[in-house]
């Protein structure tokens, strides 16, 4: 019984890791006032870049590095669209998710003549254990930076009172650029945790909605890094429990409806957002464009 419990705990940590990276990546952008619906795409691009580089160089660490760069590249496009060209942040985010979902199989076909997946990675090319604690280190870093550094203060003001930040002589869009790009790197590592850790290659739709689940965790955690990461742990537990209950039957012979566990994270997110489970307030300037003439 004990060993089953440990297995469940381990599966929870494994399932939570990509979500923690994703939710931190989302937090980076959203705390600075930039909506990040592109998390799904950032995970996919990171996962793809990581798998390709790990396979080519036979190095898990280079693969993980490339995962971050893959996320960074897509985040740069996102920044260009929403910060420079003032594209609607929701449309641009959804568009980038679609782009990543389409471009990764096309590139996969170009490189490996296979639309479904990249070649399998050997054990030495995989990044199995490090992401499991790496993500919690990042949570600690995020907490520390947000609370105790000047940067963290600017970051928060870009999302709460951009005009005040501007008046203090700090460029709002510069802070937001750094936040979006950093978030891209972190979410890209989440993708690497998927393709190098949870799986042994990149396959189509590897993220499977985890970007949106990471977003749900961010809201569940009320836009704060530590509670959001704990929400990821809860969602990881749901995923692990669901895998174990698949096909299990109650005493009366009825199968356990795992679908209800599956939808639980989304239901609690709606409840939290509606204020039925404690008040949740997004960053005040979330989704607005900053310009000297006024916030709109």
């Amino acid at each position, binding site marked *: 019984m004990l060993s089953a419990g440990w297995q469940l705990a381990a599966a929870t940590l494994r399932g939570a890791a990509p979500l923690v990276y994703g939710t931190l990546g989302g937090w980076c952008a959203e705390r600075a006032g930039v909506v990040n619906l592109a998390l799904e795409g950032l995970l996919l691009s990171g996962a793809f870049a990581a798998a390709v580089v790990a396979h080519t160089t036979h190095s898990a660490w280079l693969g993980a590095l490339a995962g971050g760069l893959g996320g960074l590249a897509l985040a740069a496009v996102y920044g260009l669209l929403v910060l420079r060209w003032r594209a609607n942040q929701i449309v641009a985010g959804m568009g980038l998710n*679609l*782009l990543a979902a*389409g471009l990764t199989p096309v590139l996969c076909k170009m490189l490996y003549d296979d639309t479904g997946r990249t070649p399998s990675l050997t054990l030495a090319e995989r990044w199995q254990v490090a992401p499991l604690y790496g993500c919690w280190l990042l949570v600690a870093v995020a907490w520390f930076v947000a609370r105790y550094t000047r940067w963290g203060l600017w970051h928060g003001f870009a999302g709460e009172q951009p005009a005040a930040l501007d008046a203090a002589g700090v460029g709002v869009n510069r802070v937001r650029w750094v936040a979006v790009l950093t978030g891209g790197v972190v979410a890209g590592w989440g993708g690497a945790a998927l393709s190098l850790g949870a799986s042994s290659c990149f396959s189509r739709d590897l993220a499977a909605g985890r970007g*949106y689940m990471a977003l749900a965790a961010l809201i569940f955690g009320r836009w704060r890094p530590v509670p959001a990461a704990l929400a990821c742990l809860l969602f990881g537990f749901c995923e692990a429990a669901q895998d174990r209950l698949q096909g299990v039957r109650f005493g009366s012979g009825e199968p356990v409806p795992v679908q*209800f566990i*599956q939808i639980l994270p989304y239901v609690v997110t*709606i409840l939290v957002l*509606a204020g039925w489970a404690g008040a949740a307030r997004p960053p005040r300037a979330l989704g607005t464009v900053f310009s000297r003439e006024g916030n709109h």
Partner: protein
Amino acid sequence: MTNRLQPIFAVAVGLALGLVVTALAGENPLHVLAVLARGAFGTRYGLGLTLAYATPLVFTGLSVAVAFRAGLFNVGAEGQLTMGALAAAAVGAVWPGWGAPGAWLAAGTAAVAAGMAWGAVPGVLRAWRGSHEVINTIMLNFIAAGLANYVTMYVLRNPASQNPETRPVGPGYMLAPWAWFAGAPVGWGLPLAIGVAVAVGWWLERSVTGLELRALGENEPAARAAGINAGRVRVLAFALAGGLAGLVAVPEVLGNTGRFRPAFSAQYGFLGIAVALLGRNRPGGILAAALLFGALQKGATDLDMETDHVTRELALVFQALIILAVAAEGAWEMVFRRRARPC
């Protein structure tokens, strides 16, 4: 002027960028373009599939557009159409003996009602609790998928199939495809989509409730000052958006498969956002944009066979690039700045 031409330029830019991708893949872009065009419009069957892909996009595009005109963002058409299709399939599976036209009416009404009910949820949450509809609709998409999976697996499962799907609807429910399209599933769903588009346009522009909806979307303080009940209009707009998305059940369930299959939708809900955006939330524009996206979807299916280096997923790349090109407003202002200044 620039406003009206911008979607056309954006489509051109999106297609051009997509063709750059094919050139990088080592494929002649002109050949790819020819394959796309021939696949989408070259045969009666191909044209039929293009229209069959376009029809659900008209409904989801209208769904997004109606919410948008009220100042609301409906990212939830995917969940609303899931509920609509499930409801239509359930009616047809539970009462298989009913005959047309009563069966059509019953299944269609169930689809619209289920879509409206699912759509009203984010409207109510926004009106009563003030929680933003974007996150709520995304979450409701996943919840709808989970519930539909449950119903498909445990309540209405088709025992004759290995794949998860509901029991087929009775024969009286099916809308026969038109023979002219040589077997492509195009039938009365298509004129229904066009008719609904015209009706929605008329309703938005000519009715009092349509005016209230637009007024709220364009200037909320003024609308409130004029005595418009913002909460009521938001719930109405979202319910209507959900009902429109639910109508996807007509071409997909009654006109094609005759049952509900989880994940049957080729991202129709998300692509509806792009269709509405590209069509500038006007019915005529939405019909044109849906046709373009349907053509890309169908044309790209031939890429697997007729090219060596690119695949059907290129359709997603084209569609995404078009969305992003339309959305990048600031970039277009730079392009048009010189011409806009004298005005």
